[in-house]
């Protein structure tokens, strides 16, 4: 397993995919810098996280998840890599897991860069409030974990489809209505594209006067169950797929 992951690293180390981890933090920093701070109460860092996080978690993270999943599969689809890779002494299951882990690691790197960008923007703006590390890290790691069902879903689609554009198009089509669906307390938790933003902003939302009134327990349950479901189905499909 470790060997397969190390082999994956060789492949995307020099791939342009890697640069995508900077896209969202860069865009969101711009928003963070341009938007004026709300003078009302509340920790400055929390406000900044809210400003930058909406764009990041609502739109860019779901899109990036799809792009990363499609990219790690495209590496193999493009040059006939699957048949070479799967004729090596590795189990298909391990290959699938490593591909998924690659996607999650790329997303984790994105979160790390996002955190750095957030701190940088705060420093530029000269924030004086103490940084609330626990809520900051909860938001970033939580939204990362909330990407797992979507990542598993997109992995399955990307493995099945040799085309690079098709899984991305599907992902984009389902990402765009995020804002509308996020406002529906009935559907939002069940919508994989909305789960990252719900977790990322859950703390702020819970405090707010008109929060989504989501039961976080429901959200976490849905995330866990749907991740397992998507992952197991994709894994099973990949193990039987004729190459």
């Amino acid at each position, binding site marked *: 397993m470790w*060997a*397969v992951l*190390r*082999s994956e690293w*060789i*492949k995307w180390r*020099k*791939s*342009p995919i890697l640069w995508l981890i900077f896209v969202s933090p860069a865009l969101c920093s711009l928003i963070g810098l341009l938007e004026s701070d709300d003078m009302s109460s509340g920790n400055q860092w929390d406000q900044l996280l809210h400003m930058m996080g909406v764009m990041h978690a609502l739109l860019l993270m779901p899109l990036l998840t799809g792009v990363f999943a499609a990219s790690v599969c495209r*590496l193999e689809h*493009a*040059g*006939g*890599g*699957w*048949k*070479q*890779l*799967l*004729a*090596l*002494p*590795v*189990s298909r299951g391990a290959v699938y897991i490593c591909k998924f882990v690659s996607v999650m690691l790329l997303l984790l790197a994105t979160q790390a860069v996002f955190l750095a960008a957030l701190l940088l923007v705060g420093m530029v703006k000269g924030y004086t409030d103490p940084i609330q590390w626990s809520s900051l890290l909860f938001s970033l790691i939580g939204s990362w974990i909330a990407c797992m069902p979507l990542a598993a879903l997109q992995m399955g689609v990307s493995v099945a489809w040799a085309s690079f554009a098709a899984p991305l198009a599907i992902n984009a089509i389902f990402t765009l209505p995020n804002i509308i669906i996020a406002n529906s307390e009935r559907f939002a938790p069940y919508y994989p594209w909305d789960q990252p933003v719900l977790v990322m902003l859950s703390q702020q939302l819970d405090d707010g006067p008109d929060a989504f009134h989501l039961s976080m327990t429901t959200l976490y349950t849905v995330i866990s169950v749907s991740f397992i479901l998507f992952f197991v189905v994709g894994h099973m499909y990949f193990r*039987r797929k*004729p*190459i």
Partner: protein
Amino acid sequence: MKQSTTTDWVIETSGLTKAIGRKALVQDLNLRVGRGEIYGFLGPNGAGKTTTIRMLLGLIRPTRGSVKLFGRELKSNRIEALRRVGSLVEYPSYYGHLTGRENLEAVRRILGVPSSRIDEVLTIVRLTKDAKRPVKGYSLGMKQRLGIATALLGNPELLILDEPTNGLDPSGILEMRELIKSMPQQHGITIVVSSHLLSEIEQMATQVGIIAQGRLIAQESIGALRGRSKGRLSLRVGAVPQATKVLSAIGVQAESAAAAESSRTGAAYDENANRILVDSVDDEIAAYYVRTLVESGIEIYRVEEVRQSLEDLFLKLTDGEESL
């Protein structure tokens, strides 16, 4: 066929079948590949060669039948078996944005062989000079060689090469052939090499399996296959019916070339007019035939040996299959 226990075969398939819907792509294949052989897997395009090879590597599941590699079921020992196999299926696989060396490194990490092995295989396929360039800039021949290098990386005991000369220029084909021929001698490797070109297989294989329409229609040593395509003696004579009669009087079956041709292709050609064919014989006996004919007053214009090429045999074998 050689009698032996199952463990002597590097590859042994029994009743191997792959069907999609009702259409059988490969049917009841019983391949036997012995150790140290260069097994030429010959068949026209679309005969089922690649499908068979994909089943041998566990890339697709057989509909029926089984594959044994090194005497053990592939199904239950896939990873262990594949550790001893190197393969190149259909066209070379590569990661275009990586250099040749990085491509090998990606595979090396999975195989767990020492880094020095990369230099060794690069030397074998003579890519050392180009190893630092991105593969997307390689010619097809170089990609093909990189594919061979990848296949050799894990020191395989069995090398499975699917159409390795596809798309190569003549010098590339020659190079690939020399490379393949050198492997069993230098490295003790067993090789399965598929091709739709008989001439290619003929020049490197020690054992041949011919597949047509998904069925194995012949499997024997190249020598035995050549033996089946024995030559005939062609005589151009003044009068065919008399000559046939004279020869049959001395107990020789002669056949009019025109009749033989038309029975095979449905057409007779002028060049076959006045020609008769007899089974090839030694010089003295040939001289005896000629003397007998001449003494019977039949004129002889030409006496030639006609070799039925392997090509003819191949066509006959595969055509025969088609008309079934």
